[in-house]
């Protein structure tokens, strides 16, 4: 790929000089920033003013050994043609984070609704966190690392009396 990273370097310099964050340029068109929960809304507002009007997705990674959830926000700018990713870490017990739906409207609100259902994260400021895919799900939020799907399926769906399946269970 071509080595002209001017756009990306300028963007990183602007953000690092305004806020106390660490960042890196992974390759052409990809800039990653690590920050914390308190600065999130102000960095997002800053990014939106700089032209990052498209929120591509919001994702949560469950780092169970460290006891934290990492939330990533991927933003794309149609004029600068650069992808900016903002990462924050929150604790796994009673996870909660401020909602960015005041900045990116319905787009952010729906992504947060899905993350609430799958990981149990409370987004403060999001007024509609009703379940999206599952009806009456009573167990743990399904995508957490401590919910083992293969154990769950063996218990719930496989029949103890069926000889074909008994062999598998052993």
């Amino acid at each position, binding site marked *: 790929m071509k080595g002209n990273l001017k756009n990306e370097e300028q963007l990183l310099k602007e953000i690092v000089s305004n806020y106390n964050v660490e960042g890196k340029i992974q390759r052409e068109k990809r800039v990653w920033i690590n920050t914390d929960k308190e600065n999130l809304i102000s960095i997002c507002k800053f990014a939106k003013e700089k032209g990052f*009007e498209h*929120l*591509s997705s919001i994702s949560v990674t469950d780092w169970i050994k460290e006891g934290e959830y990492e939330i*990533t926000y991927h933003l794309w700018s149609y004029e600068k*043609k650069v992808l900016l990713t903002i990462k924050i870490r929150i604790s796994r017990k009673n996870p909660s984070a401020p909602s960015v739906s005041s900045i990116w*409207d*319905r787009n952010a609100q*729906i992504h947060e609704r899905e993350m609430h259902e799958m990981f149990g994260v409370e987004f403060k400021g999001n007024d509609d966190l009703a379940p999206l895919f599952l009806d009456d799900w009573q167990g743990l939020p399904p995508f957490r690392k401590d919910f083992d799907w293969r154990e769950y399926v063996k218990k719930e769906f496989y029949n103890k009396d069926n000889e074909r399946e008994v062999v598998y269970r052993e």
Partner: protein
Amino acid sequence: MNNQVLLEPIGKDEYELFFGPAHPGSGNFSVKLKVDGEIVTSARANPGYLHRGFEKLMEYRLPIQNAVLSDRICILESLNWNLIHAEAVDELMGIEIPERAKYIRVILAELSRIQSHIIWFGVFSIGIGFDTGFKMAFGYRDYILDLFEMITGGRVYSAGYICPGGVRRDLPKGAEEKILNVLDKINEMVKLEEMGNPALSARAKGVGVLKLEDAIRLGATGPLLRAAGMRVDVRKEDPYEVYDKLDFDIPVRKEGDAYARYMIGIEEIKQSMKIVKQALKDMPKGEHIAPQFKKPKLNMKIPEGEVYVRNEGGRGEVAIHMVSDGSAEPYRVKIRGPSFLHMISVLEFLLKGVQIADVPAVYWSLNICPADLDR
């Protein structure tokens, strides 16, 4: 005596209509509509009929097994999803793919895009009531499925043909002439569609208008933005594979209604055919897979790191965020499908104030795939 019957308005007469999964005008997805007379006042999407939890299923399997699973994220364009998963693993592992493999990947991805747009016309026509369009579309689509069967081995699911490292087998002998013959047939179909049909244009013009500011705010991507006037395409802005060496245009229209989206679909088929012809001409000779994958070892570890790859699918922007912690299976895979935003926020916004008879026309013109919403 006065025998007149007076019909007085009783007041707001709202009732709830469930436009559900077994309705002939929808498919695997339901919408709860609140209707007042003939006009819809509000809509709420109700997805989840196809939720299998792909993101976590991929955490239990090796990348070479995930290549087979990734076709099934959306059956309507399975090779495009295969491609983006392979790209994510390639970038994480830092593999250099041979040039010939990149060209073969582009040819298959474009054929899959043509096939997906043909399905779009077929179901859009049947949703509007134009049955001839449906029969024509599915008739011509079978030529492309025969091509897939010859090259990859499967009509709809290619069993992971586009795998991390390249493609599994080289193109068989005689594939190039066959591809060019099929493209001529598709050209015939495009000429028939372009002639314009009065029934279709009467029911599709002016229906479901989505303006540019609303589209960006609601998160729409792909043909919805192009029909609203913005010239944007991930293949030009964030190029992947060999798209930066190929020459093609991006069709744009200003009206933003269902008819504009339909016409953009036809133009995109023509551009895809142009790309396939160029790729066939420019394809170099060489290997079809990277050397470390010729005989893959089962426990190849993925180095630590994370990537975010974006592609242009038939329906919009497709993206995967893959995180690895150094073991052989990926630690977390997040899949972003275009229909996730189109079916929930855009659909609920467009269905306000529409007549019940126009609901299928708006719904099908957004080119949705319930499978990549629910994953």
